[in-house]
């Protein structure tokens, strides 16, 4: 399983009290690198995943977990940021799976996209996305997110 995990997230999850952990999902390596830096600069702990399946595995909703009927043993995250346009499972599909999960439905999900398509935005918001943001994200966007999460 190839997730980009920093050393801290490999430890046993006893993070710093105020540390917020974000899972960022994007099929573009450049965009993963960018969002990771933006988040780190805003003092988030970051894990990135290159597609929806890997994201679900990290969250404990992977196929194996479902088959074995395990309670989620996934890592705790405070926020999920996902690109909308991804091959295979789109950000919208991922959002649905998260909202269908009792363990994870309370985790805010932010959808990002390079395209400003109102029907797409509404669809995501109706499915329970916390917010829809346009790419490329700026530092100010991420700072705002942090403020929203802290309240």
């Amino acid at each position: 399983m190839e997730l980009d995990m920093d050393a801290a997230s490999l430890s046993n999850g006893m993070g710093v009290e105020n540390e917020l952990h974000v899972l960022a999902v994007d099929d573009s390596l450049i965009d993963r690198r960018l969002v990771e830096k933006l988040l780190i600069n805003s003092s988030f702990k970051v894990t990135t995943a290159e597609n929806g399946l890997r994201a679900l595995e990290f969250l404990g909703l992977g196929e194996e977990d479902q088959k074995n009927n395990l309670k989620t043993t996934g890592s705790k995250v405070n926020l999920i940021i996902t690109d909308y346009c991804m091959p295979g499972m789109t950000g919208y599909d991922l959002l649905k799976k998260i909202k269908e999960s009792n363990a994870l439905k309370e985790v805010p999900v932010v959808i990002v996209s390079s395209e400003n398509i109102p029907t797409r935005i509404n669809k995501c918001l109706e499915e329970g996305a916390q917010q829809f943001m346009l790419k490329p994200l700026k530092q100010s966007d991420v700072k705002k997110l942090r403020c929203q999460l802290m309240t």
Partner: protein
Amino acid sequence: MDVVQLKKQLGDYTRSLFNEGFLDDQFNQLQQLQDESNPEFVAEVVSLFFQDSQRLVNELAKDLEQQSVDFKKVDAHVHQLKGSSSSIGAQRVQKACISFRNYCDEQNIEGCLKCLQQLKNEYSLVKNKLETLFKLEQQLLEAGG
């Protein structure tokens, strides 16, 4: 050249890249993300962009050579390139991608081929410009700036 002159040269060059539309504000955003913990951040991301673009341009050439062109595939590749060029602020490449997608929608092979050529040109130009920019930055650093 001394530090003052090198600094001016770098400033002038950078400004010209923005004025000529090669780069847009997103590139500024990248530079602002760079700090002591990640002093090579811009170079790293730009390098990823070069690799990714080269790969995508090659894929597009292959896509358009097919007997029966799969425009969905072409569009998907152009979309990726549009995304990455937008992420680093390579404005002219991004604009070329937008034109390209229009021809995809029309399933116009001639148009697509022309756009691919334009894309290759723009990519080549911005690559040269950025490499020059990094060289000037390096010169300034070495001169103590």
